[in-house]
Protein backbone atom coordinates (compact mmCIF):
# COMPACT_ATOMS: atom_id res chain seq x y z
CA UNK A 1 0.00 0.00 0.00
CA UNK A 2 1.01 3.58 0.00
CA UNK A 3 3.82 4.67 2.28
CA UNK A 4 2.08 8.02 2.67
CA UNK A 5 -0.65 6.36 4.72
CA UNK A 6 1.86 5.04 7.25
CA UNK A 7 3.96 8.21 7.32
CA UNK A 8 0.93 10.36 8.01
CA UNK A 9 -0.39 7.89 10.59
CA UNK A 10 2.96 8.06 12.41
CA UNK A 11 2.69 11.83 12.24
CA UNK A 12 -0.69 11.66 13.96
CA UNK A 13 0.64 9.24 16.56
CA UNK A 14 3.60 11.46 17.39
CA UNK A 15 1.35 14.50 17.71
CA UNK A 16 -0.97 12.50 19.96
CA UNK A 17 1.92 11.80 22.34
CA UNK A 18 2.85 15.47 22.09
CA UNK A 19 -0.68 16.47 23.17
CA UNK A 20 -0.49 13.95 26.03
CA UNK A 21 2.67 15.62 27.26
CA UNK A 22 1.26 19.13 26.94
CA UNK A 23 -1.90 18.11 28.84
CA UNK A 24 0.19 16.67 31.64
CA UNK A 25 2.12 19.94 31.85
CA UNK A 26 -1.11 21.93 31.99
CA UNK A 27 -2.56 19.59 34.62
CA UNK A 28 0.51 20.25 36.78
CA UNK A 29 0.50 24.01 36.42
CA UNK A 30 -0.03 24.34 40.18
CA UNK A 31 2.12 21.41 41.33
CA UNK A 32 4.91 22.57 43.61
CA UNK A 33 8.32 22.33 41.90
CA UNK A 34 6.89 20.53 38.86
CA UNK A 35 9.24 20.56 35.88
CA UNK A 36 7.70 20.75 32.43
CA UNK A 37 8.26 18.11 29.76
CA UNK A 38 8.83 18.63 26.08
CA UNK A 39 8.57 16.16 23.22
CA UNK A 40 11.45 15.96 20.76
CA UNK A 41 10.78 14.55 17.30
CA UNK A 42 13.07 12.77 14.90
CA UNK A 43 12.65 11.56 11.34
CA UNK A 44 12.70 7.85 10.61
CA UNK A 45 14.61 5.73 8.12
CA UNK A 46 14.86 6.69 4.47
CA UNK A 47 14.13 4.26 1.70
CA UNK A 48 16.46 4.57 -1.25
CA UNK A 49 14.45 4.25 -4.45
CA UNK A 50 17.53 4.79 -6.55
CA UNK A 51 21.07 5.08 -5.34
CA UNK A 52 23.26 8.08 -6.02
CA UNK A 53 25.82 7.16 -8.59
CA UNK A 54 28.68 9.55 -9.08
CA UNK A 55 30.29 7.80 -12.02
CA UNK A 56 31.62 10.48 -14.32
CA UNK A 57 29.38 11.36 -17.21
CA UNK A 58 26.32 9.24 -16.73
CA UNK A 59 24.48 8.74 -13.49
CA UNK A 60 22.58 10.72 -10.94
CA UNK A 61 24.46 12.70 -8.33
CA UNK A 62 21.61 12.52 -5.81
CA UNK A 63 19.86 9.42 -4.57
CA UNK A 64 16.10 9.20 -4.49
CA UNK A 65 15.11 8.82 -0.89
CA UNK A 66 11.70 8.88 0.66
CA UNK A 67 11.30 9.03 4.41
CA UNK A 68 9.14 6.86 6.59
CA UNK A 69 7.56 9.45 8.84
CA UNK A 70 8.37 10.58 12.30
CA UNK A 71 8.61 9.43 15.90
CA UNK A 72 9.13 10.95 19.31
CA UNK A 73 12.82 10.51 20.10
CA UNK A 74 12.89 11.84 23.64
CA UNK A 75 10.83 13.61 26.23
CA UNK A 76 13.07 16.13 27.91
CA UNK A 77 12.41 17.84 31.19
CA UNK A 78 13.22 21.48 31.54
CA UNK A 79 14.86 22.02 34.92
CA UNK A 80 14.63 25.80 34.70
CA UNK A 81 13.63 27.32 38.02
CA UNK A 82 9.98 27.96 38.73
CA UNK A 83 8.78 31.15 40.33
CA UNK A 84 9.23 31.40 44.08
CA UNK A 85 6.13 31.87 46.16
CA UNK A 86 6.36 33.32 49.64
CA UNK A 87 4.35 31.22 52.09
CA UNK A 88 5.64 32.43 55.48
CA UNK A 89 5.55 28.83 56.60
CA UNK A 90 8.91 28.08 58.28
CA UNK A 91 8.88 24.49 57.04
CA UNK A 92 8.47 25.47 53.37
CA UNK A 93 11.84 25.40 51.64
CA UNK A 94 12.79 26.32 48.09
CA UNK A 95 16.08 25.52 46.38
CA UNK A 96 17.79 28.20 44.38
CA UNK A 97 20.30 26.42 42.19
CA UNK A 98 20.48 22.99 40.68
CA UNK A 99 20.23 20.86 43.81
CA UNK A 100 17.68 18.33 45.02
CA UNK A 101 16.47 17.31 48.47
CA UNK A 102 16.92 13.67 49.43
CA UNK A 103 14.03 11.81 51.01
CA UNK A 104 13.94 8.30 52.33
CA UNK A 105 11.14 6.11 50.98
CA UNK A 106 10.48 2.43 51.62
CA UNK A 107 12.02 1.78 48.18
CA UNK A 108 15.21 3.68 48.91
CA UNK A 109 16.32 7.28 48.56
CA UNK A 110 14.45 9.54 46.16
CA UNK A 111 15.12 13.12 45.08
CA UNK A 112 12.78 16.08 44.96
CA UNK A 113 12.70 19.86 44.69
CA UNK A 114 9.35 20.06 46.43
CA UNK A 115 10.24 21.57 49.81
CA UNK A 116 6.77 21.71 51.38
CA UNK A 117 7.94 19.84 54.46
CA UNK A 118 6.01 19.03 57.63
CA UNK A 119 6.82 17.63 61.02
CA UNK A 120 5.30 14.33 61.96
CA UNK A 121 5.36 12.02 64.88
CA UNK A 122 7.07 8.88 63.64
CA UNK A 123 7.40 6.14 66.26
CA UNK A 124 7.49 8.65 69.09
CA UNK A 125 10.02 10.97 67.42
CA UNK A 126 9.29 14.33 65.81
CA UNK A 127 10.75 14.13 62.32
CA UNK A 128 10.96 16.42 59.33
CA UNK A 129 9.01 14.70 56.53
CA UNK A 130 7.49 15.43 53.12
CA UNK A 131 3.74 15.79 52.59
CA UNK A 132 3.64 12.05 51.90
CA UNK A 133 5.36 11.27 55.20
CA UNK A 134 8.78 10.33 53.83
CA UNK A 135 11.60 11.50 56.13
CA UNK A 136 13.90 14.18 54.74
CA UNK A 137 17.58 13.27 54.97
CA UNK A 138 20.36 15.35 56.45
CA UNK A 139 24.08 15.18 55.67
CA UNK A 140 25.29 11.72 56.65
CA UNK A 141 22.02 10.27 55.38
CA UNK A 142 20.33 10.54 58.76
CA UNK A 143 16.70 11.38 59.32
CA UNK A 144 16.07 14.76 60.93
CA UNK A 145 14.78 14.40 64.50
CA UNK A 146 13.75 17.58 66.30
CA UNK A 147 12.91 18.25 69.96
CA UNK A 148 9.26 19.08 70.53
CA UNK A 149 9.98 22.66 71.55
CA UNK A 150 11.85 23.39 68.34
CA UNK A 151 8.91 23.31 65.97
CA UNK A 152 7.64 26.84 66.61
CA UNK A 153 11.07 28.45 66.38
CA UNK A 154 12.85 26.53 63.69
CA UNK A 155 15.30 28.42 61.48
CA UNK A 156 16.95 26.97 58.41
CA UNK A 157 19.76 29.00 56.86
CA UNK A 158 20.88 29.16 53.23
CA UNK A 159 23.16 26.17 53.58
CA UNK A 160 20.44 24.03 55.17
CA UNK A 161 21.69 24.14 58.75
CA UNK A 162 18.78 23.77 61.20
CA UNK A 163 18.73 25.82 64.39
CA UNK A 164 15.97 26.49 66.94
CA UNK A 165 15.35 28.33 70.17
CA UNK A 166 15.21 26.34 73.38
CA UNK A 167 12.91 27.04 76.36
CA UNK A 168 15.20 29.83 77.60
CA UNK A 169 15.17 31.53 74.22
CA UNK A 170 18.77 30.50 73.44
CA UNK A 171 19.58 29.54 69.85
CA UNK A 172 20.54 25.90 69.69
CA UNK A 173 22.14 24.01 66.83
CA UNK A 174 20.14 20.91 66.05
CA UNK A 175 23.22 19.30 64.52
CA UNK A 176 21.35 18.57 61.28
CA UNK A 177 22.14 20.03 57.90
CA UNK A 178 19.71 19.27 55.08
CA UNK A 179 21.40 17.25 52.36
CA UNK A 180 21.42 18.70 48.86
CA UNK A 181 22.62 16.64 45.90
CA UNK A 182 23.22 17.32 42.23
CA UNK A 183 23.29 15.23 39.08
CA UNK A 184 25.49 15.47 36.02
CA UNK A 185 22.47 15.04 33.80
CA UNK A 186 19.25 15.84 35.68
CA UNK A 187 17.30 15.23 32.45
CA UNK A 188 18.15 11.56 32.85
CA UNK A 189 16.27 11.31 36.16
CA UNK A 190 13.20 9.11 36.22
CA UNK A 191 10.08 10.95 37.33
CA UNK A 192 8.17 8.66 39.65
CA UNK A 193 5.20 10.85 40.44
CA UNK A 194 4.53 12.45 43.84
CA UNK A 195 7.20 15.02 42.82
CA UNK A 196 9.89 12.37 43.35
CA UNK A 197 12.74 11.42 41.04
CA UNK A 198 14.85 8.28 40.98
CA UNK A 199 18.39 7.93 39.65
CA UNK A 200 19.07 6.15 36.37
CA UNK A 201 22.18 5.18 34.45
CA UNK A 202 21.70 8.28 32.32
CA UNK A 203 21.47 10.75 35.19
CA UNK A 204 24.63 9.59 36.95
CA UNK A 205 24.93 9.09 40.67
CA UNK A 206 23.92 11.85 43.07
CA UNK A 207 26.80 14.07 44.14
CA UNK A 208 26.52 15.71 47.55
CA UNK A 209 27.06 19.45 47.26
CA UNK A 210 28.56 19.51 50.75
CA UNK A 211 31.33 17.09 49.84
CA UNK A 212 32.32 18.58 46.50
CA UNK A 213 33.80 21.83 45.31
CA UNK A 214 31.85 24.10 43.05
CA UNK A 215 28.79 26.27 43.27
CA UNK A 216 26.27 25.47 45.98
CA UNK A 217 22.51 25.78 45.96
CA UNK A 218 20.81 28.14 48.37
CA UNK A 219 17.91 27.11 50.55
CA UNK A 220 15.22 29.71 51.08
CA UNK A 221 13.04 29.28 54.15
CA UNK A 222 9.40 30.35 53.88
CA UNK A 223 9.31 29.97 50.11
CA UNK A 224 8.08 27.29 47.76
CA UNK A 225 9.17 26.74 44.18
CA UNK A 226 6.20 26.83 41.84
CA UNK A 227 5.76 24.79 38.69
CA UNK A 228 7.82 26.08 35.75
CA UNK A 229 4.93 25.48 33.33
CA UNK A 230 3.97 28.59 31.38
CA UNK A 231 0.32 28.34 30.42
CA UNK A 232 0.74 30.58 27.35
CA UNK A 233 3.61 28.49 25.99
CA UNK A 234 1.64 25.29 26.51
CA UNK A 235 -1.46 26.70 24.82
CA UNK A 236 0.59 27.73 21.79
CA UNK A 237 2.15 24.27 21.65
CA UNK A 238 -1.31 22.73 21.96
CA UNK A 239 -2.65 24.72 19.00
CA UNK A 240 0.37 23.82 16.87
CA UNK A 241 0.04 20.15 17.82
CA UNK A 242 -3.66 20.16 16.96
CA UNK A 243 -3.07 21.69 13.54
CA UNK A 244 -0.21 19.30 12.84
CA UNK A 245 -2.50 16.41 13.77
CA UNK A 246 -5.14 17.81 11.44
CA UNK A 247 -2.86 18.19 8.42
CA UNK A 248 -1.60 14.64 8.93
CA UNK A 249 -5.17 13.40 8.90
CA UNK A 250 -5.67 15.33 5.64
CA UNK A 251 -2.68 13.48 4.21
CA UNK A 252 -4.27 10.16 5.17
CA UNK A 253 -7.52 11.23 3.48
CA UNK A 254 -5.68 12.22 0.33
CA UNK A 255 -3.75 8.95 0.21
CA UNK A 256 -6.99 7.09 0.74
CA UNK A 257 -8.69 9.03 -2.08
CA UNK A 258 -5.83 8.09 -4.36
CA UNK A 259 -6.12 4.44 -3.44
CA UNK A 260 -9.85 4.51 -4.08
CA UNK A 261 -9.17 5.95 -7.53
CA UNK A 262 -6.71 3.18 -8.20
CA UNK A 263 -9.40 0.69 -7.18
CA UNK A 264 -11.81 2.29 -9.62
CA UNK A 265 -9.53 1.69 -12.57
CA UNK A 266 -11.18 -1.69 -13.03
CA UNK A 267 -14.91 -1.25 -13.31
Amino acid at each position, binding site marked *: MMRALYSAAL*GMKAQQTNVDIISNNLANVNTTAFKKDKAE*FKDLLYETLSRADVVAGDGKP*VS*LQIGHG*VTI*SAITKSFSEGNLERTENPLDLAIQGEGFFVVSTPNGPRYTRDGSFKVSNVEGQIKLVTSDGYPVLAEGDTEIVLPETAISSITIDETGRITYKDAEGQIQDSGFKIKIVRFINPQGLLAEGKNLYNVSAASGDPVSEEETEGPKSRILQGFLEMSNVQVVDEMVKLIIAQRAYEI*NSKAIQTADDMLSM*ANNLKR
Partner: protein
Amino acid sequence: MIRGIYTSASGMILNQKLMDLTANNIANVSTTGFKRDIAQVESFRRMMTYRIYDDSSNSIDNAIGYMSLGADVSRIVSDFSQGLYIKTDEPLNLAIRGSGFFAVEKVDPQTGQVQVYYTRNGAFTLNSNGELVTLEGFRVLGQNGRIVLQNQGQIRIDEQGNIYQDGRFVDRLRLVDFQDKTLLRKIGNNLFEADVQNQQIAFSGRVLQGYLEGSNVNSVQEMVNMINVLRAYEANQKAFIAQDETLQKAVNEIARK
Protein backbone atom coordinates in the same frame (compact mmCIF):
# COMPACT_ATOMS: atom_id res chain seq x y z
CA MET B 1 -1.79 -2.92 -26.01
CA ILE B 2 -2.30 0.80 -26.03
CA ARG B 3 0.84 2.59 -24.96
CA GLY B 4 -1.16 5.39 -23.36
CA ILE B 5 -2.38 3.01 -20.65
CA TYR B 6 1.19 2.52 -19.51
CA THR B 7 1.84 6.24 -19.74
CA SER B 8 -1.14 7.03 -17.54
CA ALA B 9 -0.12 4.33 -15.08
CA SER B 10 3.39 5.75 -14.86
CA GLY B 11 1.81 9.14 -14.12
CA MET B 12 -0.18 7.59 -11.29
CA ILE B 13 2.86 5.83 -9.85
CA LEU B 14 4.80 9.09 -10.01
CA ASN B 15 2.08 10.93 -8.12
CA GLN B 16 2.00 8.19 -5.53
CA LYS B 17 5.73 8.74 -4.90
CA LEU B 18 5.13 12.48 -4.65
CA MET B 19 2.37 11.83 -2.12
CA ASP B 20 4.72 9.63 -0.06
CA LEU B 21 7.21 12.47 -0.04
CA THR B 22 4.63 15.08 0.93
CA ALA B 23 3.31 12.85 3.71
CA ASN B 24 6.83 12.50 5.12
CA ASN B 25 7.28 16.27 5.08
CA ILE B 26 3.96 16.73 6.83
CA ALA B 27 4.73 14.07 9.42
CA ASN B 28 7.93 15.97 10.27
CA VAL B 29 6.28 19.33 10.71
CA SER B 30 7.40 19.33 14.38
CA THR B 31 10.84 17.73 13.95
CA THR B 32 13.63 19.98 15.16
CA GLY B 33 16.08 20.90 12.40
CA PHE B 34 14.15 18.95 9.74
CA LYS B 35 14.68 20.02 6.14
CA ARG B 36 11.83 19.31 3.77
CA ASP B 37 12.38 17.26 0.62
CA ILE B 38 11.42 18.39 -2.84
CA ALA B 39 11.10 16.12 -5.87
CA GLN B 40 12.02 16.99 -9.39
CA VAL B 41 10.10 15.18 -12.10
CA GLU B 42 11.37 14.32 -15.54
CA SER B 43 9.66 12.74 -18.50
CA PHE B 44 10.99 9.51 -19.94
CA ARG B 45 13.43 9.86 -22.74
CA ARG B 46 11.71 11.04 -25.91
CA MET B 47 11.64 8.66 -28.76
CA MET B 48 11.20 9.00 -32.48
CA THR B 49 8.23 7.28 -34.06
CA TYR B 50 8.34 6.02 -37.65
CA ARG B 51 5.82 4.72 -40.05
CA ILE B 52 6.66 1.26 -41.20
CA TYR B 53 5.27 -0.97 -43.95
CA ASP B 54 3.88 2.11 -45.62
CA ASP B 55 3.77 1.37 -49.36
CA SER B 56 2.53 4.77 -50.37
CA SER B 57 5.56 6.39 -48.92
CA ASN B 58 8.52 6.63 -51.16
CA SER B 59 10.03 9.35 -49.09
CA ILE B 60 12.92 8.55 -46.83
CA ASP B 61 11.37 10.91 -44.33
CA ASN B 62 8.63 8.78 -42.87
CA ALA B 63 9.01 9.95 -39.30
CA ILE B 64 5.81 10.84 -37.43
CA GLY B 65 7.43 12.77 -34.61
CA TYR B 66 8.57 12.48 -31.05
CA MET B 67 6.69 10.90 -28.16
CA SER B 68 7.46 10.66 -24.50
CA LEU B 69 5.76 7.85 -22.66
CA GLY B 70 5.53 8.65 -19.02
CA ALA B 71 7.27 10.48 -16.21
CA ASP B 72 9.27 9.63 -13.10
CA VAL B 73 11.00 11.28 -10.18
CA SER B 74 14.53 12.24 -11.19
CA ARG B 75 15.86 13.88 -8.04
CA ILE B 76 14.81 14.29 -4.46
CA VAL B 77 16.70 17.12 -2.83
CA SER B 78 16.39 18.70 0.56
CA ASP B 79 15.42 22.32 0.78
CA PHE B 80 18.00 23.79 3.18
CA SER B 81 16.15 27.04 3.80
CA GLN B 82 16.04 28.21 7.38
CA GLY B 83 13.40 26.92 9.76
CA LEU B 84 11.91 29.24 12.34
CA TYR B 85 13.66 29.76 15.67
CA ILE B 86 11.98 28.60 18.83
CA LYS B 87 13.16 30.12 22.08
CA THR B 88 13.58 27.48 24.77
CA ASP B 89 15.99 29.18 27.22
CA GLU B 90 17.69 25.84 27.81
CA PRO B 91 21.47 26.41 27.91
CA LEU B 92 22.14 23.24 25.91
CA ASN B 93 19.68 24.03 23.12
CA LEU B 94 21.53 25.45 20.13
CA ALA B 95 20.37 26.69 16.76
CA ILE B 96 22.47 27.64 13.76
CA ARG B 97 21.72 30.89 12.03
CA GLY B 98 22.81 30.69 8.43
CA SER B 99 24.38 27.77 6.66
CA GLY B 100 26.18 24.95 8.48
CA PHE B 101 25.88 21.85 10.61
CA PHE B 102 26.91 20.44 13.97
CA ALA B 103 29.19 17.40 13.73
CA VAL B 104 28.25 14.38 15.86
CA GLU B 105 29.80 10.95 16.09
CA LYS B 106 28.01 7.65 16.17
CA VAL B 107 29.79 4.58 17.45
CA ASP B 108 28.71 1.28 15.99
CA PRO B 109 27.99 -0.93 19.04
CA GLN B 110 29.12 -4.09 17.24
CA THR B 111 32.31 -3.03 15.50
CA GLY B 112 33.19 0.02 17.56
CA GLN B 113 33.63 1.97 14.35
CA VAL B 114 33.19 5.71 14.61
CA GLN B 115 31.26 7.55 11.95
CA VAL B 116 30.74 11.30 11.79
CA TYR B 117 27.32 12.68 10.88
CA TYR B 118 25.94 16.17 10.57
CA THR B 119 22.81 17.67 12.02
CA ARG B 120 20.96 20.95 12.43
CA ASN B 121 19.10 19.63 15.48
CA GLY B 122 20.82 21.33 18.40
CA ALA B 123 18.73 19.83 21.21
CA PHE B 124 21.70 18.59 23.23
CA THR B 125 22.08 17.26 26.74
CA LEU B 126 24.78 15.75 28.94
CA ASN B 127 25.24 12.04 29.46
CA SER B 128 26.28 10.49 32.78
CA ASN B 129 29.97 11.09 31.93
CA GLY B 130 29.31 14.80 31.45
CA GLU B 131 29.79 14.60 27.67
CA LEU B 132 27.72 16.79 25.37
CA VAL B 133 25.44 14.44 23.43
CA THR B 134 22.36 14.52 21.23
CA LEU B 135 19.12 13.16 22.65
CA GLU B 136 19.91 9.91 20.82
CA GLY B 137 23.18 9.67 22.75
CA PHE B 138 25.49 10.54 19.84
CA ARG B 139 28.44 12.62 21.03
CA VAL B 140 28.68 16.19 19.80
CA LEU B 141 32.16 16.92 18.47
CA GLY B 142 34.39 19.84 19.31
CA GLN B 143 37.71 20.85 17.79
CA ASN B 144 39.42 18.38 20.16
CA GLY B 145 36.92 15.57 19.80
CA ARG B 146 34.36 14.87 22.50
CA ILE B 147 33.23 17.76 24.65
CA VAL B 148 33.35 17.04 28.36
CA LEU B 149 31.61 19.46 30.69
CA GLN B 150 31.58 19.44 34.47
CA ASN B 151 28.36 18.77 36.29
CA GLN B 152 28.37 22.20 37.82
CA GLY B 153 28.65 25.67 36.49
CA GLN B 154 27.03 28.00 34.03
CA ILE B 155 27.53 26.98 30.40
CA ARG B 156 27.81 29.75 27.87
CA ILE B 157 28.19 29.20 24.15
CA ASP B 158 28.96 32.19 21.98
CA GLU B 159 28.03 32.85 18.35
CA GLN B 160 31.25 31.27 17.07
CA GLY B 161 30.53 28.06 18.98
CA ASN B 162 33.10 28.60 21.76
CA ILE B 163 31.96 26.85 24.91
CA TYR B 164 32.69 28.43 28.28
CA GLN B 165 31.89 27.02 31.67
CA ASP B 166 32.07 29.49 34.55
CA GLY B 167 34.12 31.74 32.26
CA ARG B 168 36.64 28.97 31.54
CA PHE B 169 37.12 28.03 27.88
CA VAL B 170 36.27 24.37 27.32
CA ASP B 171 36.26 23.73 23.58
CA ARG B 172 34.89 25.01 20.34
CA LEU B 173 32.05 23.19 18.59
CA ARG B 174 32.99 21.53 15.33
CA LEU B 175 30.80 23.44 12.91
CA VAL B 176 31.01 22.51 9.26
CA ASP B 177 29.52 23.55 5.99
CA PHE B 178 29.56 21.92 2.57
CA GLN B 179 30.27 23.09 -0.92
CA ASP B 180 27.36 21.13 -2.36
CA LYS B 181 24.61 20.48 0.13
CA THR B 182 22.54 18.54 -2.40
CA LEU B 183 25.01 15.67 -1.95
CA LEU B 184 24.08 15.21 1.70
CA ARG B 185 22.05 12.14 2.41
CA LYS B 186 19.44 11.85 5.15
CA ILE B 187 19.76 8.75 7.31
CA GLY B 188 17.00 9.39 9.86
CA ASN B 189 17.47 10.51 13.49
CA ASN B 190 17.76 14.07 12.13
CA LEU B 191 21.23 13.21 10.80
CA PHE B 192 22.85 13.81 7.44
CA GLU B 193 25.64 11.74 5.94
CA ALA B 194 28.27 13.35 3.73
CA ASP B 195 30.24 11.76 0.92
CA VAL B 196 34.02 11.89 1.10
CA GLN B 197 34.00 13.77 -2.19
CA ASN B 198 31.86 16.49 -0.70
CA GLN B 199 34.20 19.34 0.02
CA GLN B 200 33.88 21.04 3.39
CA ILE B 201 34.03 24.80 3.49
CA ALA B 202 34.42 27.25 6.34
CA PHE B 203 31.45 27.72 8.63
CA SER B 204 29.91 31.13 8.11
CA GLY B 205 26.82 30.90 10.31
CA ARG B 206 26.27 31.85 13.91
CA VAL B 207 25.30 29.77 16.92
CA LEU B 208 22.34 30.84 19.01
CA GLN B 209 22.20 29.50 22.56
CA GLY B 210 18.79 28.88 24.09
CA TYR B 211 17.08 28.43 20.73
CA LEU B 212 16.11 25.49 18.56
CA GLU B 213 15.55 25.54 14.83
CA GLY B 214 12.10 24.27 13.95
CA SER B 215 11.22 22.24 10.88
CA ASN B 216 11.16 24.25 7.64
CA VAL B 217 8.04 22.43 6.47
CA ASN B 218 5.38 24.94 5.53
CA SER B 219 2.01 23.31 6.04
CA VAL B 220 0.21 25.60 3.58
CA GLN B 221 2.65 24.71 0.85
CA GLU B 222 2.44 21.01 1.63
CA MET B 223 -1.36 21.22 1.60
CA VAL B 224 -1.24 22.80 -1.88
CA ASN B 225 1.23 20.11 -3.03
CA MET B 226 -1.12 17.48 -1.75
CA ILE B 227 -4.10 18.90 -3.67
CA ASN B 228 -1.99 19.14 -6.83
CA VAL B 229 -0.84 15.55 -6.46
CA LEU B 230 -4.37 14.31 -5.84
CA ARG B 231 -5.79 16.10 -8.88
CA ALA B 232 -2.96 15.02 -11.14
CA TYR B 233 -3.51 11.45 -9.97
CA GLU B 234 -7.22 11.82 -10.70
CA ALA B 235 -6.56 13.17 -14.21
CA ASN B 236 -4.24 10.26 -14.95
CA GLN B 237 -6.90 7.89 -13.72
CA LYS B 238 -9.49 9.52 -16.02
CA ALA B 239 -7.10 9.22 -18.96
CA PHE B 240 -6.51 5.59 -18.08
CA ILE B 241 -10.25 4.88 -17.99
CA ALA B 242 -10.86 6.70 -21.28
CA GLN B 243 -8.24 4.57 -22.95
CA ASP B 244 -9.63 1.45 -21.39
CA GLU B 245 -13.07 2.31 -22.77
CA THR B 246 -11.59 2.84 -26.24
CA LEU B 247 -9.97 -0.52 -25.99
CA GLN B 248 -13.22 -2.09 -24.82
CA LYS B 249 -15.01 -0.72 -27.86
CA ALA B 250 -12.31 -2.11 -30.10
CA VAL B 251 -12.49 -5.52 -28.53
CA ASN B 252 -16.25 -5.93 -28.09
CA GLU B 253 -17.92 -3.86 -30.76
CA ILE B 254 -15.82 -3.97 -33.89
CA ALA B 255 -16.16 -7.67 -34.47
CA ARG B 256 -19.96 -7.60 -34.12
CA LYS B 257 -20.61 -5.77 -37.33
